[in-house]
């Protein structure tokens, strides 16, 4: 068995059946990391000793017949903006380069309780701000399908690690597309849950009304298994919603009867790459051939989503990042004149350009004399965007469309044009503004061999429907079985 090339489900079956130990699985993935991550750069830190210790403990428990968690022995890469007690959590920022959290994030606790093994922390755009991972202050990550291209962002490290088969599962966070877009660029499955479905406790905050943690896997079944563990109520996050978590893996193989798929004309306008458009239309045809009804639905406020999102997200970011003051934790400048100057110098040295740009935009949008014109206005348009989805989901079960206007962008292509980078988030950010779930699944390749994703959006707390519909698509196609040539 090619251990590092196997899916989460195959590995669990092999471990539960006794043909593989957790130690075998961890060793094979550590070998894959040593062999391939030098070129990919997906992980900021690797905890080899800790992973092997955890694997040995799982093998011991299995041997002695003790109960095991549902992800027992599966290696997971966690985006480095989620706190891991005793292990650095950098947010890919100079500000937090030496920050070692004194507690675990809720999702990290859940992973440990499920006996998953956190093998490493994955690269990201600094503080999750960006769409290419190029804003990481610590390292560059390359797309496993073509190393001249970016893996997407901000959860590009988690997506690339799963695509390169360094781990079967990854955890990311999605504020405006940061799970779905890198999943699309790297040809893996990535799901952003409904706002409130997964606790944000211990996730370093970017845009608190938008941030949501979710799974990456090579296939839908892996994403379903991981979401089952991540999701659920946590009183430590006041926006965590107290409603039962369905057994996503149990219903996954049941196709949806009478499925109504919405197609949004506003998603097929200017700026959409022809190959992406064609792949998405073919995917919709696959659903048609599986018996789904395809219905056109309008999201008339789509053209306002990018402007709304950047005002809301940057305003929240400017407030959240005010905590980095060089006093309690994080970087402190050596040279300063007084207390205020210490704050300003520490923040200037600790933050990268994109983070500064977004803080500046947010402070401006919230400042006296401007907040009604910018921030408040954006909050009102946000409701119009949400209302569009409510109207659409009265007519259809799910919306199918592109994830990103293009396949993976080249390294360096967007770094000097922030507005162009923001505009590339057009298909993903509405879901964050509305709080609804979305999934990206592999749906083909460009002529240059770069993956193309299909996005499915659902109503609030409809993750089960998204996963079942995504699994139907896998039955109709074999895109999810493709791995980049670096894996061999």
């Amino acid at each position: 068995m090619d251990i590092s090339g196997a899916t989460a489900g195959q590995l669990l079956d092999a471990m539960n059946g006794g043909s593989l130990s957790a130690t075998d699985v961890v060793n094979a993935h550590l070998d894959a990391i040593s062999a391939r991550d030098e070129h990919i750069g997906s992980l900021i830190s690797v905890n080899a000793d800790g992973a092997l210790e955890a694997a040995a403990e799982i093998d011991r428990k299995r041997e002695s017949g003790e109960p095991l968690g549902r992800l027992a022995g599966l290696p997971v890469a966690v985006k480095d903006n989620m706190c891991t007690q005793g292990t650095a959590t950098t947010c890919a920022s100079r500000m937090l380069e030496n920050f070692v959290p004194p507690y675990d994030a809720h999702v990290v606790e859940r992973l440990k309780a499920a006996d998953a093994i956190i093998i490493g922390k994955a690269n990201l755009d600094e503080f999750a701000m960006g769409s290419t991972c190029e804003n990481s202050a610590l390292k560059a990550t390359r797309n496993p399908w073509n190393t001249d291209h970016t893996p997407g962002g901000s959860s590009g490290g988690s997506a690339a690690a799963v695509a390169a088969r360094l781990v079967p599962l990854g955890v990311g966070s999605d504020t405006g597309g940061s799970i779905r877009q890198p999943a699309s660029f790297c040809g893996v499955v990535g799901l952003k849950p409904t706002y409130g479905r997964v606790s944000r406790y211990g996730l370093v905050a970017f845009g608190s009304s938008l941030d949501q943690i979710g799974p990456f896997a090579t296939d839908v079944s892996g994403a379903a298994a991981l979401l089952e563990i991540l999701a659920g109520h946590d009183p430590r996050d006041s926006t965590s919603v107290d409603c039962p978590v369905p057994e996503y893996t149990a219903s996954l193989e049941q196709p949806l009867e009478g499925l109504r798929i919405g197609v949004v004309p506003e998603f097929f306008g200017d700026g959409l790459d022809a190959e992406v458009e064609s792949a998405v239309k073919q995917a919709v045809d696959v659903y048609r051939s599986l018996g789904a009804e395809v219905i056109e639905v309008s999201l008339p406020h789509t053209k306002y989503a990018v402007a709304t999102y950047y005002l809301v997200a940057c305003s929240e970011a400017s407030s959240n990042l005010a905590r980095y003051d060089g006093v309690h934790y994080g970087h402190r400048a050596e040279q300063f004149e007084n207390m205020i100057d210490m704050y300003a110098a520490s923040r200037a040295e600790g933050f990268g350009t994109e983070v500064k740009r977004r803080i500046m935009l947010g402070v401006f949008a919230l400042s006296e004399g401007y907040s009604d014109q910018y921030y408040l206005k954006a909050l009102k348009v946000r409701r119009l965007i949400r209302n569009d989805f409510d109207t659409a989901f009265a007519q259809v079960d799910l919306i199918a469309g592109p994830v990103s206007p293009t396949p993976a962008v080249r390294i360096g292509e967007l770094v000097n044009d922030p507005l162009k980078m923001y505009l590339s988030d057009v298909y993903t950010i509405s879901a964050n503004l509305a709080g609804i779930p979305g999934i990206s699944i592999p749906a083909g390749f460009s002529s240059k061999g770069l993956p193309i994703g299909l996005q499915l959006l659902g109503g609030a707390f409809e993750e089960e429907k998204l996963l079942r519909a995504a699994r139907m698509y896998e039955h109709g196609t074999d895109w999810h079985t493709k791995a980049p040539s670096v894996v061999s």
Partner: protein
Amino acid sequence: MLAPEDVRKVASLARLKLSDDEIAEFSEQLGNVLDYVEVLNELDVTDVEPMAHAAEVTNVLRDDVSRESLPREAALANAPKSDGRFFLVPQILENA
């Protein structure tokens, strides 16, 4: 284009010490973004209720019981400067 003096004012509010080059760069880039967001002015939102949050939950309260907090040592472990009891900051009051 956002005027450089406005960028300086925002940087001061944001507690960011920016170089002259950064001020020039942000004048242009933030100006472009602010021009772009003008698109929202096409919409009449007079009677629209602002939506601050996706999950519109009301106040969530916990029982008012004391719980264990982070031990002092752990809370201070990441401090850039500490004397083992407190976070240390530069002197704030003159002649103190």
